[in-house]
């Protein structure tokens, strides 16, 4: 433990937070994208069941990335958890309702023959994919803008905004980046797991969504150049007890791009975002489905990493009281908690990845209408 200082552990947990969010965006991202595409790439009931059953056996496991993300933020960044979840209250509840629609939708949709029942669930599943995709993007947008919160001297947080305050043009642009990205990602997944007209439509959706992602992501980058970023002025101890009230922060136009000039290697993240999307489109045109899915996953990783690296060392800045912003250096758990959590992550993440790979291997192969019909447990 002596080699790992508090500072190291904080950076490691900032990285692990990134890993978890990227894990969520890649794994559950294609479930969300598939749900968004459901009403559009599948016309008949048989086709829709095929689409649903491509994610049916795996979406529950994938969603754990989100649950784990929530749990890890709670344990490693308690203040970030407290401020963001309560500050974005109604937005979070909207996400929650949308996410709750999914288990019910997947499980219950095909349990009745009724066409109206199934049509309704199909659209609810679309909502269950679209709303979280949009709002997670909007949340990242608001992290870049800063959120209107302050603390009193007992560290009780007051939030000075509301749901509609979150929906600024820039935040909505970030939301659309997220929707385009996950739609593309879902499209590449469907191209891997289906065949015939559904796969054909999924490929064309991937191309449109990929193009939209590249344009919107570029627009976002341009916008950030003129946006107020946040900067810590003066010294800040990297290994002191977590107290976000002990520093001075100023807002500065274009500051979110400062990390890229200070640490040129970080430019790899946006390059990965653009390059991955472009590669995913090229591979889709070449009907190289697996290649497109991998490229799309890289794009997802690149886009999420871009947001994180632009913010560093900030995690959630305060627009009302910039000096109370939450940063890597003053919003973490205690050193011992970070250490215990690191051990748990080192033990369990490889195990999780191992059995997840095994499960995808067992479930390999295309989903077809015949197979869906033949299996009692199909959704």
């Amino acid at each position, binding site marked *: 433990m002596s080699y790992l200082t508090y500072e190291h552990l904080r950076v490691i947990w900032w990285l692990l937070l990134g890993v978890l969010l990227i894990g969520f965006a890649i794994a559950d991202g294609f479930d969300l994208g598939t749900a968004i595409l459901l009403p559009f790439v599948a016309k008949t009931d048989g086709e829709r069941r095929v689409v649903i059953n491509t994610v049916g056996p795996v979406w529950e496991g994938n969603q754990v990335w989100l649950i784990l993300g929530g749990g890890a933020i709670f344990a490693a960044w308690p203040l970030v958890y407290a401020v963001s979840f*309560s500050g974005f209250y109604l937005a979070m509840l909207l996400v929650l309702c949308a996410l709750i629609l999914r288990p019910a939708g997947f499980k219950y949709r095909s349990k009745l023959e009724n066409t109206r029942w199934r049509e309704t669930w199909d659209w609810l599943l679309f909502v269950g994919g679209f709303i979280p995709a949009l709002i997670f993007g909007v949340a990242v947008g608001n992290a870049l803008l800063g959120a209107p919160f302050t603390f009193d001297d007992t560290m009780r947080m007051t939030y000075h905004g509301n749901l509609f305050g979150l929906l600024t043009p820039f935040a909505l642009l970030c939301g659309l980046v997220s929707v385009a990205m996950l739609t593309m990602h879902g499209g590449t997944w469907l191209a891997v797991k289906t065949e015939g007209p559904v796969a054909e439509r999924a490929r064309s959706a991937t191309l449109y969504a990929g193009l939209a992602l590249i344009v919107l992501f570029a627009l976002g980058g341009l916008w950030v150049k003129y946006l107020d970023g946040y900067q810590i002025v003066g010294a800040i101890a990297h290994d002191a007890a977590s107290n976000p009230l002990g520093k001075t922060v100023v807002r500065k136009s274009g500051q979110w791009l400062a990390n890229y000039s200070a640490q040129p290697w970080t430019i790899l993240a946006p390059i990965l975002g653009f390059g991955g999307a472009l590669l995913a489109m090229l591979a889709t045109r070449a009907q190289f489905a697996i290649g497109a899915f991998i490229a799309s996953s890289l794009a997802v990783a690149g886009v999420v990493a871009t947001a994180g690296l632009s913010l560093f060392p900030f995690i959630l800045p305060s627009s009302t009281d910039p000096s109370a912003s939450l940063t890597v250096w003053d919003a973490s758990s205690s050193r011992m908690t970070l250490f215990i959590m690191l051990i748990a992550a080192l033990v*369990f993440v490889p195990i999780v990845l191992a059995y997840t790979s095994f499960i995808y291997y067992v479930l390999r192969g295309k989903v077809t209408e015949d197979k869906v019909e033949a299996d009692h447990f199909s959704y």
Partner: protein
Amino acid sequence: MIDNVTVELSRLQFGLTAMYHFLFVPLTLGLSILLGIFESVYVMTGRTIWRDITKYWGLLFGINFAMGVATGITMEFQFGTNWAYYSHYVGDIFGVPLAIEGLMAFFLEASFIGLFFFGWDRLSRVGHLVVTWLVALGSNLSALCILVANGWMQHPVGAKFNPASMRMEVANFSDVLFNPVAQAKFVHTVSAGYVTGAVFVMAISAWFLLKGRNIAFAKRSMTVAASFGLASALSVVVLGDESGYNASENQKMKLAAIEAMWQTEAAPASFTAFGFPDTVTHSTRDAIEVPWVMGLIGTRSFSEKIPGIINLVEANKARIASGEAAYGALEQLRKHPEDTAARTSFNAHVDDLGYGLLLKRYTDKVTDATPEQISKAAWDTVPNVPALFWTFRIMVGLGFFFIAFFAFAFWLSAKHRLDTYNWFLRLALVILPLPWIAAELGWFVAENGRQPWTIDGILPTFLSTSSLTAGNLWLSLGGFVLFYSVLAVVELYLMVKYIKLGPEAEFPSSTALGAPALSLPKGGR
């Protein structure tokens, strides 16, 4: 000052969503193990009826599981959305078991549940059996982590307050992990889940037998459920007793409130089996007392006393005064961290800091509290005595009923007479809601009995909330009630539909087996 409406609405929302979530959890816990047992019998005997039994109960398991997952996300989010100060104040400790739950348990359960349903033709028999047991292991480990978290709320060990970060931080993680309260609660809670699973299988099988359907299927299901249910029912009560013993050591006020024990009695104290607790006169009217029992259960000795409510309130007045000193020293330390006099005073009183915080209900400044305010705050430490008194007794009564029911069912199954008595089958059917009632009451006793604290002795409930407006809370609460009600209707509708369809609709082979099984000699399985 914190808005009381915010506090009460937040409590109501948490209580409702948690209790709603726990409608699905116990059945998941119990059925997952039963599925493992059914399928183990299939793999060992090779008889397809056991595979069909596994698949049919698995189908019902799936309908229930989806709702457990859906409502569980709410729980993971809700600490942050509605209890932001709590999340800041104890996230350093409380967040850890929740995160490990995701990493170790929920990932396992949620990943393999897909293979349980979709892996029947893709895996070998033993391979699929392993998957089923991994789902059961995952759901039970999940309960372990959650109860480690909840156990810490009841008995916060292994943590200390850090004035610099203004929160509780981990001091000794193994104390948190091996918290005796958490261990007893874990076994008590999962056993209650097993009872629920066993009653569910018994009730629906009994319905099939009453209808003369799926005889072989139902009798086999019942045989397993009867013995599993008996073992679980015994375990619930034994570990419930262990929890009571723990409470007498760590949560004396909760125990006294459950017993409506106003005054300290001579040891060993008597147990009030029945009576009407009166919160105005601080006495229990028309009490029927059983001598010695309470003292023996609570202390496991003849000489140790169990303190009464009034005596505990008196003791808490002193702790509140000490907490007032801790709060004053803390304010000084926040401004001047180098002040050694303040540090010394703070260290001397830090264990009572939470009691000082109780005064925030009456004065923002805390250090200027009047004796009258201290007295009011001390009486705030008494939870709702009549509610706890009654819910506890109903829960315990149900616990003993389950032991009797399963003992009889076990005897019938040993005699191969499970389908002999129609009254027994009807009884098995009508008691279906009882395990849920017992489980919900159990949580009520645990959580309401901990009031006025979220973290016992550390953080009062009314300080734990987020700074939300009443408008937002009404909106979310209304949304939850509406949304959850619709989901409940959908879930129940599908559950009933698939129960009515029965295994014969899904697996015709077991119905074919069902008919000849009737003509087999007794015990022919």
